[in-house]
């Protein structure tokens, strides 16, 4: 069975019959289509979301300077190098649960879950789009920080894996929250709580020494502080203490979230 459309010389005249396809080339094909789907689906919102993230990052950088008149360079460096983490995580952890909650509420969730693509392509396509949305904010926040506080940051190659991994972990955590939690309300609450923990209870924009001992200890196992560490070590020359361990922690969180997410979307009631 094949559908033959109106003949045109030299072009593919028929549409392929449905088959169960597999293999890396198929995966890439499906991935590319899903990236396009995500971009079109969110085409009206992505520019705004990207701007919001820029405002978030740059606003934080500038605002802190207003609040505390004099900020010593080490503190400013710590702060500014932590902000990219906030931008990267917001995209994955806040946007996706909201998007999926809206899909559930509006009834379009089932259509999307029945699309003939491997689930991993949908997830990786969203990862691509979320990362792309956050990158301008990361760049601008860092630039703003360097300019405002006269910092000396270095763009080392280690920045690439740091950003890729941080964003991936944020996206997978958001994916897990969005798909594993059926009630949109609870999903929203969880993602708001996580972002709150990120902002206020993790050594991302301020050092762990400011936290009570038990919280500092807990943060050795939570992902956010480690994310800040790996990004920071790629920007600040000579600061590499604990980077190896930090990578392991973040990667572990990515793997665990990935497993939960895979179970959540693959699991049928």
């Amino acid at each position, binding site marked *: 069975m094949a559908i033959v459309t109106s003949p045109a010389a030299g072009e593919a005249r028929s549409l392929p019959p449905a088959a169960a396809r597999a293999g890396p080339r198929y995966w890439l094909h499906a991935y590319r289509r899903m990236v396009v789907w995500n971009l079109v689906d969110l085409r009206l*919102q992505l520019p705004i979301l990207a701007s919001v993230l820029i405002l978030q990052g740059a606003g934080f950088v500038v605002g802190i300077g*207003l609040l505390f008149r004099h900020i010593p360079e080490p503190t400013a460096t710590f702060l500014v190098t932590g902000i990219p983490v906030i931008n990267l995580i917001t995209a994955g952890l806040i946007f996706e649960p909201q998007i999926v909650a809206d899909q559930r509420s509006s009834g379009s969730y089932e259509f999307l879950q029945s699309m003939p693509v491997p689930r991993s392509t949908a997830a990786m396509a969203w990862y691509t789009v979320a990362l792309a949305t956050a990158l301008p904010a990361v760049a601008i926040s860092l630039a703003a920080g360097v300019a405002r506080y006269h910092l000396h940051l270095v763009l080392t190659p280690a920045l690439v894996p740091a950003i890729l991994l941080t964003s991936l972990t944020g996206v997978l955590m958001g994916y897990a929250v969005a798909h594993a939690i059926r009630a949109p*309300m609870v999903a*929203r609450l969880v993602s708001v709580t996580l972002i709150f923990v990120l902002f*206020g209870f993790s050594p991302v924009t301020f050092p762990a020494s400011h936290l009570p001992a038990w919280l500092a200890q807990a943060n050795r196992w939570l992902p956010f502080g480690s994310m800040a560490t790996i990004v920071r070590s790629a920007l600040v020359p000579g600061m590499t203490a604990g980077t190896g361990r930090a990578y392991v922690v973040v990667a572990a969180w990515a793997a665990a979230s990935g497993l939960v997410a895979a179970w959540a979307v693959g699991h049928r009631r």
Partner: protein
Amino acid sequence: MAAGEIVSDTGSAPPAVGRGYRHWLASYLAMLRFDIASQRTWLPMFVLTQVLFGAGMAVIYGFYLGPMAPQEALFIVSGAPAIAAIAAAVIGVSSMVTERKVAGTWDFIWSLPVPRSAVVASTLTVYTAMTIPGVVATLALAAWRYDVHLSLSPVAALDFVLAALMATSMGFGLALAIRDPLVTNAVLNALIFLVLLFSPVVYPITQLPGWLAGAHRVLPFYYLAQVMRAGVTTGLVHGLGTAYAVLAAWTVAAWAASAWVIGRRR
């Protein structure tokens, strides 16, 4: 029975067009039932969001500052309820409004034979009431964390309710005004921290540079904090009249904006 007359199953006359304040009151009460039923889903989120933000923010600020003087601590604790109210308004109310948008509930509500002002009044009543427990819990938690004693004034309850109403109205108006639910939530969630961090709610307005302090003499956040602070402290808050006046202006603006959004036909 005259030929051609339609008789409904209940045997009563067909619905007439309701007018007047009695109809408004009846509609308001009916919508109250609707909103109270919906609060069952939303109350946990409200309380949790408020406690998280209110008490949490108070605690976080301590992390940023390190050890602090008793006056500073009092300022933080007396400002925490305002943070809780703002969090409830911005995150809680807006989530509810956008959820209703996405599920099509607003279309259903606006098609009901009730005056739209009654709908808004009912929603604001119920969701303001939902703000109170979280605000109180926040105050208790913060006071305990910083070991501060508060002097409750007799008008504390009134202060809190009015402030909560104002915050809820503003959150409601804001969420209605922004059409896209995803954008609304993204904007609010991403920026709430900045708003809370850079508003003189848990620290005196004098700490801000001139232009930012000036901005906050127009924006509602500072005044919201002052009004709530007045209910639990003595001698700390001056110019309460101005605070109420500005807040009233913002609340009316929020109501007007809501009315305009609801009234316009696309």
